[in-house]
């Protein structure tokens, strides 16, 4: 019982403290400008592009980009959760801890899941209001679940990228590339059937792809597609495993080469 409480405390309190300390650029104006207004304006950009080209309707772009909005906090946050420990010289202290690494790192990803969920929900609600595309009330529970799973999968992806921060210096370069990759490959901004086969295959392995399709189905009144939800869960679990494996691998390597805090 005490062990469970200790682990829960590590996940929740440790995660909250690390979020406050490491995701430190998110002052209220930055949060509003970068995480809320930026993605909202991106929805309008793609909606008008879609209207001009007639490839997909407003709802396609609205929902896809709202799901994608979680990626800003999840990918960059996940990266910062690991890489900034190294940058601020606190990584050694964290890794000296005898605690199990899985709850330690999972706790760090948790705030970004909630952050991503909030951002996606805000963008979806605000863009729906402005564009006059109401979301059916009965779809809301399913949508909340889909957005939660999407944010979770994306945070696991971000944590896997952050693990690279234990080995490489310029990890934010990697997260920028990954963020652009999500825009291109997940089908959030462009119908996936217009992409070549290899890009569609790559998209299948990325977070948000299946969630975007599931969310579109829900807002169109089709109900929750459990297969898509399961696929998003599987992708998220896969990236979580990759993150844990990479973190363990690079931790061992850094200890061996004594390069843990070397910038």
């Amino acid at each position, binding site marked *: 019982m005490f062990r469970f409480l200790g682990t829960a405390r590590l996940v929740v309190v440790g995660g909250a403290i690390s979020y406050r300390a490491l995701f430190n*650029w998110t*002052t209220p*104006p*930055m949060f*509003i*400008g*970068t995480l809320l*207004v*930026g993605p*909202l*304006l*991106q929805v*309008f*950009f793609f909606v*008008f*592009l879609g*209207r*001009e*080209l*007639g*490839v997909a309707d407003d709802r396609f772009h609205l929902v896809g980009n709202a799901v994608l909005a979680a990626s800003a906090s999840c990918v960059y946050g996940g990266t910062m959760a690991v890489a900034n420990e190294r940058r601020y010289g606190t990584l050694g202290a964290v890794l000296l801890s005898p605690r199990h690494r899985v709850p330690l790192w999972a706790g760090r990803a948790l705030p970004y899941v909630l952050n991503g969920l909030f951002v996606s929900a805000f963008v979806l609600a605000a863009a729906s209001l402005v564009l006059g595309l109401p979301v059916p009330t009965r779809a809301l529970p399913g949508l909340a679940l889909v957005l939660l799973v999407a944010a979770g999968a994306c945070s696991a992806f971000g944590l896997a990228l952050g693990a690279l921060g234990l080995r490489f210096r*310029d990890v*934010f*370069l990697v997260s*920028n*590339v990954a963020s*652009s*990759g999500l*825009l*291109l490959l997940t089908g959030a*901004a*462009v*119908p996936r059937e*217009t*992409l070549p086969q290899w890009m569609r295959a790559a998209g299948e392995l990325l977070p948000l792809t299946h969630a975007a399709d599931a969310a579109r189905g829900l807002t169109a009144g089709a109900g929750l597609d459990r297969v898509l939800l399961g696929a998003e869960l599987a992708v998220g679990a896969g990236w979580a495993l990759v993150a844990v494996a990479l973190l363990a691998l690079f931790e061992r390597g850094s200890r061996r080469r004594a390069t843990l805090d070397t910038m």
Partner: protein
Amino acid sequence: MNTGPLVKRVPRLVLVGVRTHVSYMSRSPLEITFAVLVPLVYATLAVYLFRAAGDPDRLLTASVGAGLMGIWGSVLFGSGGAVQNQRWLGTLETLVVAPTPLALVLLPITLATAVIGTYAMGATVLWGVLLFDVPLDFAHPLLFLVAVPVCVLALGMTGLLLAATFVLLRNANALANPLDTPVWLLSGLLVPVTVLPAWTHPVSWALPTTWGARAVHAATSGGDVVAPLLAAVALGAGYALAAVLVLGRVERRARAAATLALT
């Protein structure tokens, strides 16, 4: 007052300054990635969307539009943070006490950010040619080669106003981050401004990016190039003049309050 030496010195100062800052910015992999990668992703998205829309004749327009988006992105983030970067580098005081007016010291920096943006233009056009067989059938090839540098000049001058105003705002980044997509949209870089609501048109007309993009697109696919190009330069000069006034006020305030070096 003999203005002869000043007239001779200013072009030299601007040219040497632009060369210095372009060299400096070109040494940062992160800067180059920002300048090239995101426009390439948008160019790819645009090409697939335009193809799906059955509009293959506009693929070159899509590549050029994505390049223009890259130039604006570079100006927005580079020029917006120009003064702040000098603060962080510890060179702002030296620049302010130099006998050369501060606006003339900052102008080469903002022009350099626009020049760095041309990497994006080169990359997106080359990307289109190599990967998507986009034919380089410019309506006015020579005018295109004139329109792009003049558009860069206009955007660089606009960047000076960004540099001047952003220094007044403590949370300038919070404003800069979401300013990317609305300017893409309002300037018709990828989507014609005619698809936007009528109330946005006066805002579009007030942006040098609108006229610069119109000139570059006209050189690409046909139409009047010279008139929009002149409008872009005139508007850019107006923005630069406004920047000079704002910078004078900012400099006086910072000197009086002794806050020049404070972040």
